[in-house]
């Protein structure tokens, strides 16, 4: 538990005893239930951080010095020197495993050094022998070889370096016109380590930061790994992924003391609404669907016409996997009566339905909003209304549910969603829905509805029906 929360809890327990709310025995039991973080624990954490930074900086410094390219030194000497960081870091890693396994600082630092040591050696050799090969090849190979070290040494810092490398590699690979096919298998390979760690220390700070980095990696990885031959598929993929994260977070970290302790669910929560707000505009729905398919020239697992057929297949596999995952998580949430995240689940389902309609039509263009008599105008209007109604419904749902369960943060979040929606519809309006009379009437109607809801709630509150 964080120190500020610890001291708050201790002050509260003392106050409860003074006020006679709990007796001394209960207070002792409560203090025993939440033991203070010892100085030794804090020192251990500090030692891990300093050891990782120290050893990491030494290896990085070696890489930078060697990158100067000391071509005047004989080749044999340079090749020998290139192996020094590799052999020494591997040696330290094996030593840590055999002799210092109970010391996290050794395990963490040696794991990071082993990962960087390989990258340093391979990089130096390709410099010495003028080997063609981009930095992303080196990062991918280093990440793949990092995995056994991360597992064997149970290293959190190594896990962070691994996830960071994987994300950077997939971004670089796509930007260079390649593909990020390896992202998903390599990401899946680290999941057991993340799950094991979360089970051991569910709400610990390391679990929290690993969770945030994992969510960030998934957020970036999904976007860059998609080949995007089917325009607009990203809309469904992101909507379903955010819903999955929200559901998974709720199932695994449902009793988290704060939103920050549930990074997976929080990412899904925020991502769902940010995406939904984006989808209330026209641009994501333009030129999408099968009519705008960017076909590859053959079924071969190769590059063709700017797209990779294998990566294209991976798009469908990933999208199908996410949908299957979503169905399983939604079923589990219903079974365990976790209903709150189903609001974001419903949002994802609505997005998928809108995508199917827009993709099947394929007629929405940048100019669709100009012709009210056209079919594409009606589709666009229907999507606009569905998306706005879903966000409105979800906002109201969170306000009411937060109120019913006495969770002020949920009430505030629901109110924030509603405020943002109202601002967007009031200020940033697109051409096809500029009709001021219609908008004004909708605003007034919703205002009346909110006032009526407030009146009904006040009456029930005064009768003591709701907390």
């Amino acid at each position: 538990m964080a120190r500020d929360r610890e001291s708050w809890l201790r002050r509260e327990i003392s106050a409860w005893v003074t006020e006679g709310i709990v007796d001394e025995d209960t207070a002792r039991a409560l203090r025993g239930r939440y033991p203070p973080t010892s100085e030794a624990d804090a020192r251990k954490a500090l030692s891990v951080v300093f050891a990782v930074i120290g050893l990491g900086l030494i290896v990085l410094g070696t890489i930078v010095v060697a990158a100067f390219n000391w071509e005047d030194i004989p080749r044999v000497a340079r090749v020998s020197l290139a192996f020094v960081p590799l052999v020494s870091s591997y040696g330290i890693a094996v030593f840590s495993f055999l002799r210092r396994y109970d010391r996290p600082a050794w395990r963490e630092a040696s794991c990071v050094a082993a990962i960087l040591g390989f990258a340093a050696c391979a990089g130096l050799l390709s410099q010495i022998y003028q080997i063609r090969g981009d930095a992303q090849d080196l990062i991918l190979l280093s990440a793949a070889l990092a995995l056994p070290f991360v597992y064997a040494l149970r290293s959190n810092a190594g896990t962070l370096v691994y996830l960071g490398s994987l994300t950077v590699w997939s971004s670089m690979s796509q930007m260079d016109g390649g593909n990020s096919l390896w992202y998903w298998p390599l990401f899946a390979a680290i999941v057991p380590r993340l799950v094991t760690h979360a089970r051991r220390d569910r709400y610990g700070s390391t679990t929290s930061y690993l969770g945030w980095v994992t969510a960030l990696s998934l957020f970036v990885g999904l976007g860059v790994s998609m080949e995007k031959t089917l325009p607009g598929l990203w809309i469904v993929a992101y909507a379903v992924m955010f819903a999955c994260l929200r559901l998974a977070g709720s199932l695994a970290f449902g009793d988290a003391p704060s939103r920050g302790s549930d990074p997976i669910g929080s990412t899904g929560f925020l991502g769902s609404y940010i995406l939904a707000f984006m989808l209330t505009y026209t641009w994501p729905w333009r030129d999408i669907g099968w009519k705008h398919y960017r076909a590859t020239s053959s079924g071969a697992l190769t590059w063709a016409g700017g797209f990779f057929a294998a990566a294209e297949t991976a798009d469908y596999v990933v999208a199908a996997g996410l949908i299957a995952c979503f169905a399983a998580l939604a079923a589990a949430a219903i079974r365990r009566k976790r209903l709150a995240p189903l609001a974001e689940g419903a949002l994802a389902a609505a997005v998928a339905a809108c995508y199917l309609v827009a993709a099947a039509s394929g007629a929405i263009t940048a100019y669709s909003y100009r012709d009210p008599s056209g079919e594409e105008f009606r589709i666009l209007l229907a999507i606009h209304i569905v998306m706005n109604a879903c966000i409105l419904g979800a906002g109201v749902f969170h306000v009411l549910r937060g109120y019913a369960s006495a969770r002020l943060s949920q009430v505030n979040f629901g109110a924030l969603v509603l405020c943002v929606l109202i601002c967007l519809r009031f200020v940033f309006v697109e051409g096809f829905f500029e009709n001021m009379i219609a908008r004004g009437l909708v605003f007034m109607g919703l205002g009346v509805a909110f006032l009526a809801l407030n009146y009904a709630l006040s009456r029930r509150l005064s009768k003591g029906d709701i907390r």
Partner: protein
Amino acid sequence: MKRKILLAVLLLTCAVGLGVNIVTVMTREAALARESVWRFRIGGFDPLDPFRGRYVEFSAPALLSLAGDSGGSLPPWLGTDEEFFAVLERDEAGFGRIAFASEQRPGSDGDWLTLRHLGDGRVGPVFSRYYVNAARADKLDREFARNRGSAYITVRVSGGIGVITGIGFDR
């Protein structure tokens, strides 16, 4: 038991990490041991790599297409993303180029490279970087700008692998 398995995995990974780099050294040293030197015309500029420092990025047009009897087109048997053996020859000025693409591994050594057909007649670049001493990088960059079109690399070849041994200008 679990700890022994983990130790074995750790040692195996160390062996793979070392092995990958040792194989790199061995194959390149084999090429550098050959006496025959090839020159290929290049054009380029100089970016920076975080691991390997400053380098000259270039393309070697003579290794991206055929110049021999086939009239510059790749043979029909060559599929997309397939490797082939590019047998080298020297032009009138002594610069190397691809004479023909072979399906079979040539018997001799030192005069062929393993290249990859990317599809639509495009050949994957086999040489594209020359790492430079950081103190010399700016000077080399200026030389490139002054001697546009006259730069070349020298390469030694063995077992289909080429290693760049230097960079120069013939004007």
